[in-house]
Structure formats: C-alpha cells, structure tokens
C-alpha cells in the first residue's frame, strides 16, 4: 500500500531523528563528565545511564517511526471505501508491529558498555578533599588538602610545593581518565547507532510486508 519512494522517505526521516537523538545523548553524557562531580558517582552513573538513555531512545524512535508509517498509511486509505478502512481497523497494525519490534527475538538491546576503570585514582580521590576536585576541573586556584590525606598520598612529602605537585599529578590523571571516558562513550554510541539503524529498518520492512498482505 505504501510506495517504495514513501518508504525511503520515511527511512531518511527516521535516520535524521536517530542522528539528532544520538547527538543529544552524547552531549548529555559529556556534560556530566565535564562537571565536578564525585568521580565514583560519575563512573557508576555513566555506566548505567548511557545504556538506559539509549534503550529509552530506542522506544521513542519506535513510536516515531510508527507515527511516520501510520500517517502515510492513513493518508493512502483516507479516500478508500469503508471496507478497506475496516480492514485496517481490524488488523490493528500499530499494536501488531510494536509487539513484534519489542519481542525479545527482535528487540533492540544495547551492547555492553565498557568504561575504562582506574581504581587507583578513584581510591586516591576518595581520600582527597572535594576542594581538590574543583582544582581538577581547573576552576580553583586554591585547594584544600587535609594533612593526613597528604601523608597517605605521598609519604615523606611535607612541603606545600610538594603537595601542589601531587595535586597537579592527580588532576592531570583525572582529566586523562575523563578524556578516555568520553572516547568510550563515543565509540559505544557509534556502534549502537548502527544497530539501531538496522533495527528500525527491519521494522519498516515488517510493516511493509504486513500491510501488503491486507
């Protein structure tokens, strides 16, 4: 019932949506990575939040795609006689396709998200006062580090110059880690974007096949 051109147009539209949604996820996750948040929290948050966001987006994109397809279908049958319209009503296409797309055999499942772990730096940070984290973000010039923490970090170092050196080292290491996290997120989103694309394409095909049989 839907022409090849129409289906291609729908695929183009949903791809644009996929692009913009992926960009939103990326910028949202990067926003958090750039902020002065507890690094433990940040790691756990990104690990769970990114795939969750992706899964939610997949559901939204499915609805969007069904909207495009159903709009096109309803437009085609709008001037058809009552029996054609009745067959569409009876078939309940949207629900049928949605159930198929979310069935465990066909559903989109994000790949496992791997984030670079650096327990050593996290352990060190856990002991360092949060003022240091501000310094790590490059926002503060003065930092607060309690004596016992310094002792744990660099035994033997007692001068202020020494502690400033340690702070600089830790800061650079955290920033390096954050850069790696951003790359991890990037790669993850790229891989899943491709998977999402083929999933959405399979839905278009299924829809086309089902309505052709009506």
């Amino acid at each position, binding site marked *: 019932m839907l022409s090849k051109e129409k289906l291609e147009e729908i695929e183009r539209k949903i791809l644009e*949506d996929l692009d*913009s*949604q992926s960009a*939103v996820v990326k910028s*949202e996750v990067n*926003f*958090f990575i750039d*902020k*002065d*948040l*507890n690094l433990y*929290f*940040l790691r756990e*948050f990104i690990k769970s*939040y990114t795939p969750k966001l992706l899964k*939610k*987006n997949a559901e*939204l*994109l499915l*609805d*969007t795609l*069904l*909207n495009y397809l*159903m*709009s096109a279908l*309803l437009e085609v049958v709008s001037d058809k006689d*009552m029996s054609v*319209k*009745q067959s*569409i*009503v009876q078939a309940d296409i*949207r629900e049928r396709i949605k159930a198929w797309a979310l069935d465990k055999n066909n559903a989109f499942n994000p790949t496992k998200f791997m984030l670079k772990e650096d327990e050593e730096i996290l352990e060190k940070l856990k002991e360092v*006062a*949060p*003022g240091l*984290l501000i310094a790590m973000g490059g926002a503060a010039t003065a930092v*607060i580090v*309690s004596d016992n923490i310094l002792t744990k970090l660099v035994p033997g170092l007692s001068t202020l110059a020494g502690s400033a050196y340690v702070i600089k080292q830790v800061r650079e290491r955290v920033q390096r880690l954050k850069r790696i996290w951003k790359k991890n997120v990037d790669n993850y989103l790229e891989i899943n974007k491709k998977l999402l694309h083929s999933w959405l394409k399979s839905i278009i095909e299924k829809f086309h096949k089902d309505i052709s049989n009506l």
Partner: protein
Amino acid sequence: MMEKKIGFHEYKIFVTELVNIYDSYLSVRGDYNDGINIVLLDKKIKNIVDNIFYVAIAGEVKAGKSTFINSLLREEILPADVLQATSSIIEVFYSKRPFLKITYASGRVEEIEEESKEIFKERLKEVAAIPDEYRDIPTSVLDQWILDHGEVPEVNDEFIHYLEAKSNLDNLSSLIDKIRSYLQKRNLDNITTRIELGYPFRVGLENIRFLDMPGVNAVGGVYDIAFSYLDMANAILFIHPIKPVESESFKNFVSTIIPKKNKDMVFQVLTHAVVYFEEKDRLLNEARRIYANLIPPNRIFAVDSILKLIHEDLMRGKKLEDIKRDKAKRKWVAFVLDLADELRIPPEKAFLEFSGFKELLPALENFLIEAPILELRNIAQTIHTGYEELERMLNEHLSLLLVRQKDLEKFEEEVKQRIDGYKRLQTEAYFILEEAEINFKGVNSPFERALQEFKSKYQELIVNSRNLEELRKHYRDAEDELDEIIGKSLSTISGFFQDRLKVLGESLNKEYKLTIPKIDFAILEESTKKKLKEKEEKDALGRAWSFLLPWRWLKLKEIFKFKKESASTLEKKLMQELKGTAITQISNVLDKIRDEIFKALDYYKGQVKQMLKEKEAQIERLRLEIKTAEALELEILQTEKKLTMIQREKERLNRFLENLNVV
C-alpha cells in the same frame, strides 16, 4: 472572578445547597451512563464537605506570631514572648473537646484532655519554648543533631566548628559549658516532633487549622521540618514588625524558601501597628512599594494584635478597668480611648477599628475560599453537563419509542440506520486514536520536547548549584515545573479527544441520527493529574526530596565517616553526593512521568473503546427487545416524567450557578 466578597458562613451555605443538588442528581440519574464519572464526582463532593484550610503563620523570632495567632483565635491560648523551639510546630484547630497532644521523637505521646486554656498554655510553654538561659546557643542545630543520630554528640573543637558553620554564629567555643549543659538535658524523649492543640474556639474556625511555625532565621531560612507544613498550607502569613519595614528575611523567605507554587499564597502582616500609629499608612505604603515584585499590594496588611485582643476582651464583657490590669494592654487602652475620643469613634468599636483586623480577616477568608468556590462551580457545571447528556439520551430514546408505538417498520429502518452509523463510528474512532498516538508520542511530540528541555535546564541548574539552599530551590522549582508540563500535556490530550469526538458526534448525528455517549474528560484529566502527582511524590521526587533533608543525608554511611572533617569540607562532600542523587532522581522521575502520561493516553483510548462497546450493546438491545403495547406506553410515560424532573433540577442548578457567579 469574584465580585462580592463572602466569608466562611456564606460558603458553608453554598456547600450545603450543592450537596442537596448532588443527591437529587444521583436519584434522577439512576443507572444511566451520562459520561460523568460518579466515583470521582463523589470524591470531589466529599473533599468539599471535609475541606480543611491550613493557614501557616511564619515570621522572624519575636515578631509577635503567637500574639497574632491568639488574636485570630480570639483566645489567649498560645504562650507569647517565648522563643519557640525549631522542631515545635504547633497545629491549632477547632475541637469540641479541648485537648493538647504532644508527640516526641522517641514515639512517646502525651495527651492532656479537658483542661483549662491556662493549663494548656503552661504546658506549651514548657515543651515548645527554648529556656531563656539558652537563647544565645544554636539549640535548634543541637536538637537536630540528636534527632539525626539518636544520641547526644561529643562536644569538642570539631563539633563547635560544625555548630558555627551550621548556625552562622561565631565564638561558640566561649559557650561550650552552656552547650554541654543544654545537651545534658536533651534526648529523644523530650524533643517534640508534633504538637496539636484542639480547642472549642468561637464559631467560624471549624474548617481552619493554624500552623504556628518556629521563627525563621535572619536569612529567611526555615528548618526542614517546616517545609512539609509550608507545602500543605492554603495561605502563608508572614509576620513582621511594621518598623523597620524592610525585611531581608521576608525577601529571602519568599524568593528562596517558598516553592514557586506557594508564592501566590503569601500574605505579609506588619505587626505592632499602633506603636507607630502616626506613621502606619506611610509604612504600609512603603512596604507595598518595596515588596511589589514579591507579592501583590492587596496582600500586605498592618495590624495590631494587642488591640484585637482588647477588643475580644470587651466582647466577652470584660471591663476596661480589668483589661488595664494586664501590663501589655494597659498603655494601649488609654491610647486608643484618647484617639477614639478625638476621632469621635465609639470606644467599643475603636479597638477593632484601629487593630487592622477588619481589613485582614475578610481578605484572608475570601482568599481561602476562592479555590473551593471555584471547585463548587466546577462540580455544579459537571452536574449540569450530566443533566444535559441525560436529557439528550432520554429524548433520543423517547423518539424511538414513539416511532415504535406508531410504526414498527419505520422503527426497524431507524435502528438499521443507527447500526450503519455505528460501523462508521468504529472506523472513525480508530482514526482518532491513531491521530492521538501520532500527536502525543515520539521524539517530535511537544510533550517529549518539553521533557527534554526540562531535563537539560535542571541538570545544568542542579550541577551548578553552589549550596544546599540553591540545590533545594532548584529541586523544588523542578517539581513545580514538572507539574506544569504534566498539567499542560494532559489538558492537550483531553482537549484533543473532546474536540475530535464532538465533531464526529455531530456528523454521525446528522447522517445517522446516532448519538455518541459523552466522556467526562475534565474529570478524567483531573484524576489522572492527581494520580500522577501522587506517583511523582511517593515514587520518585518525594524520595529524592526526603534525601535532601539533612537528618537523612547525614545518616548516609558514605558521608557519615567524614563527620569529623571541617564544616566546609563536609558541606562540599555533601553537595557532590546530593547533586549526584538529584541528577539520578530527576532522570528516573522523567521516565516514570513519561510512562504515566502514556498510560493516561492509553486510559483515554480505553474510554473511547468502552464507549464504542456500550453504544453497540445499546443498539443491539434496542433491536432485539420485544415490548407489549402496555409496556411501551408505560416506558414512554416514565421517560417523559424523568425529562420533566431533569428540567426542574436544571432550573435549580442554574439558580445556584447564578448565585455563585455573583460571588
């Protein structure tokens, strides 16, 4: 918009009348489905009948809050001139049986019954006030610590630093002995968590519950326990002495403490007006100018509580000579009598006249009943809609019965016409449901865009919050904004279904004489909103909000181990933890809200499908039912009788609405 100001008395008359109207409606309606959701309407009626108005009285320490409440209550029952402890919010309300119920942090409940107001006053003084000798130490922070940890803290330098940071007080180390002495006397068994005072006050206060809040601090902050009370208030009266008129605490209270949704409920009450009698008008105008961007000028009043209390004494028949024996009143009796003489006002009227309560009380009453009056109007209009629908259904039914009585063949033709109409209804309704999906779901839907914008905005605000107050404010604003998004989305969905079904109904009626039953979308929308709000509070936002309460977050294991650190370090660590939690919760809430809105959409769709089924069954019944001529005649008579009753009830309802409209 209200034109005539009415008080509680007139409001109660309206409520009684509406309850009668509702009872008649129920009996006329019987089992007919007129599209009105009776369960929900019944709940609304019950809420109106049981309505309690919460009036929170806040203000700085020693601003005269208790005297002010006493003057409202017309009884000197709350102890004045004492420093109220932070955790002691006193709820005062009308009760036939006088009682004072005090709940302590340990769970112990103390109840004093059937005693005189002097006994209550004395007990309140003992439990709710901070003893004079401890006025210079942060007793509230100390009590809070005990509440948080369930034990008395060890008082050392670290703890003193913590106290100084928390209370904004300096040099507390010089008061270390006093702090220790205070702590020795405090435990969970003598820190109150709730104080309720029920008393047979004079008529007019049956539906009001006054909440006597502890004094706000210098920067307008309130302690966390007060938030839940401020949230439930229908009006918040901020008490402040008339001079100096400028109040930083009030500004902060309105701009950062009160959530956005409650800002429209704030009144400013400038007290001790008679002390500055000559300057009163100037000061009042100045206040109205200074706070113009915070609250409207008609919600700022200048009052004098002592004068109102003297007036109440006089009303009780007390002689002026006796009133003068009260030190606090003596000076003002003489002053007002002089003034009354000068201005030729009868002495018995002068005290009320100069007290300022004659302006404040009607304004407050009117404000409190404004929303319930609107609700009365909505209920009356819903019943009206129900009657109109009933009338339409019965008329359609009657016309078919009359056709059947006259010409069976024509009757069958008409039924067939309706069956064809039903088929079209089924198809068109499916198209409407599809259109709803297209409009309200997917990445490009206005609802999804609103959620995305909301998320970006509040993620940014929360992550960039500089302190707990700011974080808390953003979080509360987020709650309010989410409510707006929910409200707007639901009303768009309701509006969509309503419009589409109306157009479809008109076309089917014209072509097939088929009427489609009404669906009460307004009431559906309201109940969905309420359900969502509960979900939002119980499931997600509420949980996160309680996480922001200090006594909760201090208990967190991860944070607890840092408690020996300096106050500023502790605050920074806490902020990071709290931001993390707030971000996670906001994201969880959005997922839940999205799911719930979609569920609501499905529910609406379900209602349309249900309506289709009902219509199908109705047509089928009509076609198959075999009736004798006598039965047919009886049914025609009964239907006509019902239509007359509806007409009569509609007229009564119209009169009620007319009276309500002039209010």
